[in-house]
Structures are given as structure tokens and as C-alpha cells.
């Protein structure tokens, strides 16, 4: 019994979310319509409690539940990022959902379930836990994408995501079965032990299929086809959730699988990662140029950013992984701020999402324009802001491991990408004003301002979290 309670202590954040979900489902079912606000507040509280438990709780590393669950520094770091993404998205979503009349109590519950899946995913130490976490996360995401069920574009987004997601799950399972067939074990450590530096055909096949499934979840090119349509069609808070929390979990599990299960065959996986990285950076930069819809623009932007983060993984080593972690942390802050801005784009009670709707924002709402422009500069990687450091870390790691062509392509595509971020700034500051936005709800405004302060702060004092990323990265090796 003490064995079980010791194991449970390691997955306390997951337990909090799981137990909370069950209570909230009951609460929503019994109290019905009037429980909406209460359920959201409790859900936000649960996410906050999970963050606190990770930050203040024990820092002992362990693998429990017969090799299914690993508690380590890397997992704790990524879990805090994921939970923070979910929490902020949930808090920002209230007013939007109420305005669109889709504020049902199931929304926070699905966010919680999806976040729980992400935590299971990040802590997966074996293929079965990986698959179950991925499915728990994705299944809730499919429903969330189609949450505005009377809206034809949201339904299309949900259906498209579901069909392609099922296909990618199939690929991932096929790869997992090949790996299990070869290694005879599902645990990452066991697979690494069996491979022992020999890249046999079965392992490479399994690795490729596993990577396809994971690249789909990260929306890395060439498995990105669904991303713009789904991100555009889904309700805006859900898109914010996709871009923030989901990206954190997907990148985390990709790092963990590659670095703990396949350390012996680095040349094999490095090829795949470099290929995904270059294609994502280039396509993310060029395809976003012609976009008129800001959500679609952010979809291509996220494809590009995943490419940049993968540069760090391709570089490998502690420095590379720490670079990816720093990149994801800064990316989380920037995208949360950007989506806080996008959520505030409402004219006469209806949401607008075209870049042209931002025209002349500097004259109608100077504060919002200032912070939104700051997010755009940071996403582009302009120096006095944190986005510059994010790119600097991963490119630096790439150069240190001798991947010069990759670093050069990365820098060039980030120059191209700067064009469309700066275009948004130009539209806001130099174009004729479009109709002014409604008075924004307080939550998105606070998030936008806090993100703006953070991107400056993280640039000025990078030491504050660089140590944390280094410590987290070390636990993977």
C-alpha cells in the first residue's frame, strides 16, 4: 500500500486534475446552466493548484507505475509551461464564449481533460502511456475545435482535425508496434538498451512512423496541412489553447522520446529532425506572407516556430535541449499575449479576425496597439525583446554542433518571417483607422500587458530561467 501511495505522490498534479474533473462533471450535471461560471472558476483553481504542487512539491526524480510514469526535472518544467498555457487560455476564454453564446460548463471540463492528457504525455516513460496521453489530449481537442457546433467552419475544423488526427494516431501506433516487436519492451529506457547503437531496419521503420505521428501533433511540415484550416475555424480561445498548451506538450514528448529511447542512433533521427525543421521554417515564413486572417497568420507562424524549436533538438546535447526549452517558454508568453490581443478584436459585439480590422489601432486604442506591436516584434525576434533570445539560443546550439547550413537557413527564414509580423505593426500604426474595437474585457487586457512586460523582463534578466532550462535539460541525459 505504501508502494502505491509513494507512486501516487509523484503524480499528484495529475490526480488533482483527474479528481477535479470528476467532481466538476457531477457539479455541472446536477446544477445545470447556472453552474457555468462556478465550473470555470474551480477549473482555473485546479490548474493553479497543479502548478503550485509542481513548483513547491518534492523534486525527487522517479519512475513509477511499472515504467509508465516518470517524474523528472524536464517533465516538471514542461508541465508548468503547459498548465500555465491552459490556465491563461481558460481565464481569457470566459468573455469570448459568453459573447458567442457557447459558454457551456463542458468547456472548462474538456480543457481540464485535455490538459490532463498533456501531463500524462509529458510524463510518459513508455509507449503505452505515450499513446494514452496523446489520445486523451487529442480526443478532447477534437471536441473543443468543434465546440461552436452551429458554426459550419468550427464543425469543419473539428471534423478535419478528427479525421487527420485519427490517421496520425494510426501511424504512431504502427511505429510503436514495430518498436515493441523489435525491442520486446514498451519502456523508452528498455528500447534504448535494446537498440544499443545498432540502427536495424525495424527500429528505423518504427522511429519514422513514430516521428510522423508526433510531427503531426506539433504541426511540423510536411504534416501541417490541417493546421491553418483548423486554427482558423476553431473558436479563438480554442485556437489559443492549440497554439500554447498543446504545442508545449507535443514538443516535450518529442524531445523525451527521441532523447531517451533513441540516443544510440542519433544520425538516423537527426536527419528526420533537420528535414522537418528546414521545411517548417521555410514554409512557415513564406506561406504566412499572403494571409489576410490573423488566426491563419498565427497558424503559419506556429509552424515556423516549431521549425525553429526543432533546430535546437537537431543540435542535440544539453545546450540544444535547453535552447528548445527556453524557446518554448518564451514562445508561450508571446503567443498568449498575441491571442489576448486577438480575443480583444470585437466590433459591435461580433468578433473580427482580419488583419485589416487592426488598421489604425494606434489611434483608436494606443495601449493595445503598443503591446500588440511588442508581441509582433518579439515573435519576429527583434533584439530588445525575449523572442530574440529564444532564436539566439537554438541557433547558437546549432552552430556549436556544426550545423551551419541549418543555422543559416533558420536566420534567413526568420528574416523573411519578420516581414509579415512587421506588416501587422505597419497596419496598426500607419493605416487609416478601421472601426474602433469594443471596450475589451479585463482578462485579455491584463494578459496582454503582463506578456508585454515579461518579454522585456526575460530579455533583461535571462539568467532567471536559463538555469531552470539547463537543469531541466540535464535530467534527460
Amino acid at each position, binding site marked *: 500500500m505504501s508502494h502505491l501511495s509513494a507512486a501516487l505522490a509523484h503524480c499528484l498534479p495529475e490526480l488533482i486534475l483527474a479528481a477535479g474533473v470528476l467532481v466538476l462533471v457531477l457539479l455541472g450535471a446536477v446544477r445545470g446552466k447556472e453552474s457555468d461560471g462556478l465550473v470555470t472558476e474551480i477549473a482555473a483553481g485546479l490548474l493553479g493548484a497543479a502548478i503550485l504542487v509542481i513548483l513547491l512539491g518534492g523534486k525527487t526524480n522517479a519512475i513509477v507505475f511499472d515504467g509508465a510514469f516518470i517524474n523528472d526535472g524536464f517533465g516538471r518544467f514542461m508541465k508548468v509551461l503547459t498548465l500555465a498555457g491552459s490556465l491563461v487560455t481558460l481565464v481569457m476564454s470566459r468573455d469570448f464564449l459568453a459573447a458567442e453564446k457557447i459558454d457551456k460548463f463542458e468547456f472548462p471540463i474538456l480543457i481540464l481533460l485535455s490538459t490532463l492528457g498533456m501531463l500524462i504525455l509529458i510524463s510518459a516513460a513508455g509507449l503505452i502511456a505515450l499513446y494514452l496521453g496523446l489520445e486523451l489530449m487529442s480526443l478532447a481537442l477534437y471536441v473543443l475545435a468543434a465546440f461552436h457546433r452551429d458554426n459550419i467552419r468550427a464543425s469543419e475544423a473539428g471534423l478535419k482535425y478528427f479525421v487527420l488526427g485519427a490517421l496520425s494516431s494510426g501511424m504512431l501506433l504502427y511505429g510503436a508496434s514495430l518498436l*515493441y516487436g523489435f525491442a520486446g519492451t514498451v519502456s523508452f529506457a528498455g528500447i534504448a538498451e*535494446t537498440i544499443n547503437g545498432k540502427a536495424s531496419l525495424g527500429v528505423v521503420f518504427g522511429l519514422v512512423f513514430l516521428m510522423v505521428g508526433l510531427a503531426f501533433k506539433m504541426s511540423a511540415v510536411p504534416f501541417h496541412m490541417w493546421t491553418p484550416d483548423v486554427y482558423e475555424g476553431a473558436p479563438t480561445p480554442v485556437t489559443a489553447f492549440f497554439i500554447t498548451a498543446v504545442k508545449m506538450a507535443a514538443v516535450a514528448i518529442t524531445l523525451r522520446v527521441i532523447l531517451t529511447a533513441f540516443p544510440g542512433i542519433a544520425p538516423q533521427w537527426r536527419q528526420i529532425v533537420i528535414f522537418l525543421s528546414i521545411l517548417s521554417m521555410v514554409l512557415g515564413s513564406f506561406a504566412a506572407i499572403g494571409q489576410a486572417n490573423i488566426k491563419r497568420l498565427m497558424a503559419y507562424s506556429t509552424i515556423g516556430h516549431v521549425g525553429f524549436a526543432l533546430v535546437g533538438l537537431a543540435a542535440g546535447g544539453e545546450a540544444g535541449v535547453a535552447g528548445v526549452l527556453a524557446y518554448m517558454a518564451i514562445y508561450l508568453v508571446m503567443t498568449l499575449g498575441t491571442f489576448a490581443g486577438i480575443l480583444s478584436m470585437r466590433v459591435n459585439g461580433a468578433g473580427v479576425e482580419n488583419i485589416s480590422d487592426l488598421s489604425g489601432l494606434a489611434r483608436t486604442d494606443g495601449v493595445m496597439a503598443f503591446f500588440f506591436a511588442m508581441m509582433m516584434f518579439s515573435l519576429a525576434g527583434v533584439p530588445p525583446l525575449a523572442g530574440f533570445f529564444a532564436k539566439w539560443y537554438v541557433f547558437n546550439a546549432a552552430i556549436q554542433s556544426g550545423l551551419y547550413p541549418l543555422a543559416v537557413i533558420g536566420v534567413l527564414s526568420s528574416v523573411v518571417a519578420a516581414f509579415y509580423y512587421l506588416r501587422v505593426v505597419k497596419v496598426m500604426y500607419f493605416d487609416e483607422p478601421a472601426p474602433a474595437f469594443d471596450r475589451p474585457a479585463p482578462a485579455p487586457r491584463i494578459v496582454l500587458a503582463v506578456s508585454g512586460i515579461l518579454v522585456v523582463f526575460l530579455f533583461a534578466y535571462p539568467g532567471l530561467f536559463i538555469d531552470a532550462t539547463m537543469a531541466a535539460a540535464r535530467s534527460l541525459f
Partner: protein
Amino acid sequence: MNIAAWFFYLFSAMMIGAAFMVISARNPVHAVLFLILAFFNAAGLFLLLGAEFLAMILVVVYVGAVAVLFLFVVMMLDVDFTELKQGFLQYLPAGGLIGLVVLIEVAFVVGAWTIGPVSIANVTTPMPPGMTNTMALGRVLYTQYVYLFQAAGLILLTAMIGAIVLTLRHKAGVKRQNVAIQNARTPAEAVEVRKVASRQGI
């Protein structure tokens, strides 16, 4: 050849024959009955492997529930299976060709395959001594893999919530049964007695 081997070939041959009849029988009811026969033979194969619990579960769940459900569907819905099957022979050459190509590819892959040493050791997993089938399964499901089992349960919960969120519509003006009100009715308010004059009606 010992008796277990005889039974193995008996069950296997009958299962393959029944499975073939499932897809070739003209009458859909016969097809479902052949499916049930295939399930019984699969249960027999499980018994030969020493997996009694799985054998019984296969009969109870698949024959008892799933196949009976199939029978219901086949009998209730008026599906014209002969029409569905039309063109089967027409596409057979093309489909067969693709199948052949895939088969050759698989053969190439398998030919160059090296199987890890641990997998070979895993092929035969003997029962732990002094343990029944049910106990061994229960130990694996509810003790060794309890975390994954619970995670799977949460996935099912998500699927259920998702289905409700996406499809449930609250219609206005639906009359619901209220037992308390029904029981509280008295003859005085429920029945009206009228005097009907002859040849008049009401």
C-alpha cells in the same frame, strides 16, 4: 501428433472455413451465424493455449452480445446485401493486384528483418505458478498497469462528454413524465362525467 495438435488443426480449419463463409454467404443472417461459429472456434484455440478466461469472455461478449446485436441489425434494417456486393468480382483483379504488390513488399521487409533478442524471449509467456487465469489477468490490469487502466477510463469519459457536447440539443416544449404529478391526480380532476342524451352525442 498428440491430441492437442489435432484439435488445433480442427479449430483452425473450421475457423478459416467459417470466416470465408462470412464473406461469401448470400444470406446475411447465415453470414452472422458463420461469424458466431468462427468466434466459437477462436474460443477453442484460446482454450488450447491455456487462456480459459479469454475463451469464456470471447463467447460471452462476442457471441452473447456483439453477434446478437449484428443479427438484430441485419434483421431490422432492410439492407440489400446483394446490391452492396455487386461489383465485388469486377474489382477483384485490380484489388488482387494491389494486394499482391503489398504482399511482396511485406515479404521484402520481413526478409531483411532482425528481431530483437528480448522479443523472442517474450513469445512464450508462461503463467505464473499457482495462479489462475483470472487472477493473473487481474494482477496485470489492476495492479501492474493500474495507471494506464485509469487513463484509458478517462479517455472513455472524454469520448462520452464529447458526444454529449456535440449532439445533445435541449428542445423547448418537450413533454416529460412527472410521476409525482401523475400520482397526485384524483378522479375528481381527471374524470368528467357527463350525461349524454340519446342520439345526440357530445
